């Protein structure tokens, strides 16, 4: 049995906005084992980024608040930590890379300064050693002429280069867990391919675990060992990548898989999930997916399903998980 590095149990993160109370993350559970990559998938607004920010304890309060649940990292509950204790963990043992590399780098400091900030803080190196380490990190992420690049500002770098800098910064303290929130969404495909290959190489070399947040099922299939699918603030399905892609049990997961145009298959017509994602301040009663589900029955409209293990390691939150016959119709 693999050792869990991060365990999130029944996490509830709620935002109190002028328009109402928004339960962005509602009893979400997930775990990431040592050295493993977990893909967290869902459409915009499903709560995947809020889950990640909750793990980092970066939810702005107000308007947001973690209302309940546990976040265990290496056996310690992060929700019980003080802000000072969190600071020794963030950027050190857990670090994060964000979607938009331009907005997450500070435009008025050099790349080198921004990388050395974390190194000096967490590893207590002096300026010269920290800078040497920064150059080494830039070389590791494949930036040409790193000795020169450390003195450059973010605007002098291309999008792909900036994302490499973000990765260098995140990895500079050798974290046990890397949270990557849509790391390649803002990048072009050829640059995305570079960054994904880089992340794979570094994962193998450094042995860290990755919580990979994305809406792109292609990226998940390529990078992740396990996957957790979210919909409207809830987990709907979790399991190893292959069984989930081959035999999805939740109608939403199946709908997502069938609605993407695929390069290696000919599809005359795409399967479309009817309707849109519900407004988070007015989630439907019962199963949150039921208004869009073609298999919905009375029970789905009344009672909320819970995440249950139906096959070893494969969990689903659905009253009527798909059987082979349902899947056949696509």
């Amino acid at each position: 049995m693999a050792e869990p590095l991060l365990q999130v149990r029944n996490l509830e993160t709620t935002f109190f906005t002028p328009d109402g109370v928004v339960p962005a993350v509602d009893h979400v559970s997930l775990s990431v084992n040592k050295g493993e990559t977990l893909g967290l998938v869902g459409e915009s607004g499903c709560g995947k980024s809020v889950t990640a920010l909750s793990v980092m304890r970066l939810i702005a309060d107000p308007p947001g608040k973690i209302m309940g649940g546990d976040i265990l990292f290496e056996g310690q509950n992060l929700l019980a930590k003080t802000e000072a204790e969190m600071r020794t963990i963030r950027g050190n043992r857990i670090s994060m890379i964000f979607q938009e590399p331009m907005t997450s780098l500070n435009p008025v400091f050099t790349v080198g300064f921004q990388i050395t900030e974390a190194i000096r803080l967490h590893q207590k190196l002096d300026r010269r050693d920290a800078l040497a380490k920064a150059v080494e990190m830039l070389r590791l992420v494949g930036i040409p002429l790193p000795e020169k690049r450390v003195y450059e500002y973010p605007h002098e770098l291309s999008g792909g280069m900036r994302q490499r800098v973000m990765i260098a910064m995140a990895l500079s303290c050798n974290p046990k867990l890397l949270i990557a929130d849509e790391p390649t969404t803002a990048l072009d495909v050829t640059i995305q391919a570079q960054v994904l290959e880089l992340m794979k190489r570094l994962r193998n070399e450094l042995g860290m675990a990755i919580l990979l947040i994305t809406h792109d099922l292609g990226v998940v299939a390529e990078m992740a060992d396990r996957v957790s699918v979210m919909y409207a603030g809830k987990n709907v399905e979790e399991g190893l990548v292959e069984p989930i892609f081959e035999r999805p049990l939740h109608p939403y997961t199946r709908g997502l898989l069938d609605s993407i145009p695929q390069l290696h298959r000919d599809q005359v017509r795409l399967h479309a999930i009817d309707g849109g994602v519900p407004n988070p301040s007015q989630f439907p009663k019962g199963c949150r997916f039921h208004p869009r589900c073609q298999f919905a029955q009375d029970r789905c409209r009344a009672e909320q399903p819970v995440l249950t293990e139906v096959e070893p390691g494969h969990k689903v939150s659905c009253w009527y998980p798909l059987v082979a016959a349902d899947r056949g119709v696509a």
Partner: protein
Amino acid sequence: MATEEAAAATTAEKLIDVVNLVKYFPRKQGLFGGPRTYVKAVDGVSFFIRRGETLGLVGESGCGKTTAGRTLLRLAEPTSGQVFFEGRDILTLSEPEMRKLRAEMQIIFQDPYASLSPRMSIGDIVGEPLLVHGVTDRVVREKRVIELLELVGLSAYHMHRYPHEFSGGQRQRIGIARALALQPKIVVCDEAVSALDVSIQSQILNLLKDLQQHFGLTYLFIAHNLSVVKHMSDRVAVMYLGKIVEMTRKQDLYSSPKHPYTQALLSAIPVPDPKLERERIVLEGDVPSPVHLPSGCRFRTRCGSAQPICAEAEPAWREVEPDHFVACHLAR
């Protein structure tokens, strides 16, 4: 389409024929002047679109695909070149003539948030093209707007609402209704689904296909997502730094790409199939600046198989197989 037929695309079946289209944007000069430099957004592209077909135009950001689409409609004035619409060079038309012609050439924009005026009701937005083109009777206009809304999956009561009340997918439907108001012959879809979530994206793609079938529309489908382009198109043109590097029927492009850039682009896409093992070509470096283009072939700086000739001469646009065009010295 049969090969012989495809090879001899007659003028009659070409709805759009673009010849050597060029669009340069002048850059701001520095304090002390200096030589004028240009962003070569579209640097001599030629393609045609047959009646009723979809031509996909694919490429990475900054390759000029949007500019190509806009100059085609004369939303941006091209620097040089010719654009034939039903055999007529539209670049020679006067402003009033062009306005009349625009009824037949419409566009759907990428960002459904930025392309609808927040102060206009949906009825006014969809009805505006009708008003501009002489449908002054309000009752007639309203009736047509309702028809259009229903056509794209919305309802009559949406007419009195405003854009902020709609989701991204619904707004894109409104944009489509507006584009179809004048029964155009060609619609340029500029990244029409890239701002949408996958489950909504598939709804819109299906809608676009249904409408095409229903009205016999011709599409220029511009997108960066190759899987989406493949799904939608009959033929696909791949752009890199202001040039089309390869253009052919989609089956041929995806099964036997000839240009090294197309090959790399195809292998770069993550495929949602965990069992699929494949060799990936990872391109080195970034796209060069469109101001200072490399000599010869503009892809050579990132090309794995570049030869000395690639730096010396710009590759010619050749038909290597029937209906399969490529601009590469090494492609056979």
